[in-house]
């Protein structure tokens, strides 16, 4: 089967120290098992991780960069959404 027909998979690796899987790269594989083994061979050679997640690229949906302005700019100037904006009375010791 020519390689061009193998689907593309996105690889996420959880490092030894970390708590979340981080995107490490992508590779081609025929199915999930092979994708996991390929990820192990390609992305964990230097003990980069202890756990691998693979997701076929077609299942990842991303926000549209053209819409970034509408999506993200409005949050820039709403300082009241940050907890540090508020003064707490001294009696509330454990907030």
């Amino acid at each position, binding site marked *: 089967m020519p390689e061009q027909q193998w689907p593309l998979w996105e690889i996420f690796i959880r490092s030894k120290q970390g708590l979340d899987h981080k995107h490490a790269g992508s590779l*081609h*594989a*025929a199915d999930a098992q*092979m994708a996991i*083994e*390929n990820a*192990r*061979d*390609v992305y964990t*050679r230097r003990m980069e991780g202890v756990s691998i997640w693979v997701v076929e690229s077609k299942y990842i949906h991303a926000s549209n960069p053209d819409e970034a302005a509408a999506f993200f700019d409005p949050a820039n100037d709403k300082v009241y959404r940050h907890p540090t904006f508020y003064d707490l009375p001294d009696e509330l010791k454990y907030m």
Partner: protein
Amino acid sequence: MSIEQALINFTLHLADDALILGHRNSEWTGHGPILEQDIAISNIALDLIGQARNFYQYAALLINQSGGVEAGGVGGGFWSGGVGTDGVVTDVGGRGAAGAGANGVDKGSGGVRINGGERGSGEAGGRGPGVVVMEDSLAYLRDAWDFKNCLLVEQANGDWGKTILRQFFFSAAQYALYDQLRYGKDAQLAAISEKASKEVAYHLRWSSEWVIRLGDGTYESHTRMKKSLDELWKFTGELFIPSSYEQQLAKEGIGVDLSLLRPRWEERVREIFSEARLSYPGEEARKGGDGGEGADKRGGGEGGVGKKSAGGVLSGGKEGRHTEELGYILAEMQFLQRAYPGCEW
């Protein structure tokens, strides 16, 4: 032979198996069918060579402790030579190191000196306290008849499927072997096996998956796998035929009884083959054809390899009788060290 010598031979056998297969796999580096598989097979080659290094270091230690190679050791031949860490070069012809004198031993240098006086005698050359053997000399300076790898690992790579099948057969046996050896009486062999077991577990898993994918794949992949099976099956018998040193060590609890490994190997192979839609050739296939030490026709010769059937059992590798393939492997692998002894980079 003494237990000491049997242990040396067994350790060399384990090392040679790993080194030759590692070398064969490394021939794919840069030529793999797909990037990720090129990396995978190179990783496997590195794992195997790492195992080989561990075994060679241990063998060198044992050899040096025992005072050198026995004249009557398996395979004979003189193979201690090379360069000491102090940079003194002795060529394999052994003209003697500078200033060493006819029977000179320079223990302080930590290097290799060849006892010039004995050099000409041919067989017994390696004996005596003057010769220090290292992992490199074992890997690069022994000739084919001193190598104790089984015949399976020296077979040519062929197509991807044949490489996979060879790896599968070997890893299934190696996994079963290490799983026993880690509980053996020799602490060093147990330690090496324990560590290597994890690597081999992955080799076995990886190759099993590919045997299934190619066997139960397209018409072409299935046909190629059947052809590879025909070519390789005759070499699988040797994996469970104990050599004299293996028999001796098994009795002492240091080695492994190979007959215990065979059922585990067979179970695994049958399981994977049924998913791969390949038929298990079985013992009947082994009885057709040569049925004996086919490689033994002349020293190092190819013996019964020319037989057409998939049957028969070819063996002799563990005792130093190899197919012609090994000669080509060593010519490539050893050329540099032999042409430029002691070169470093």
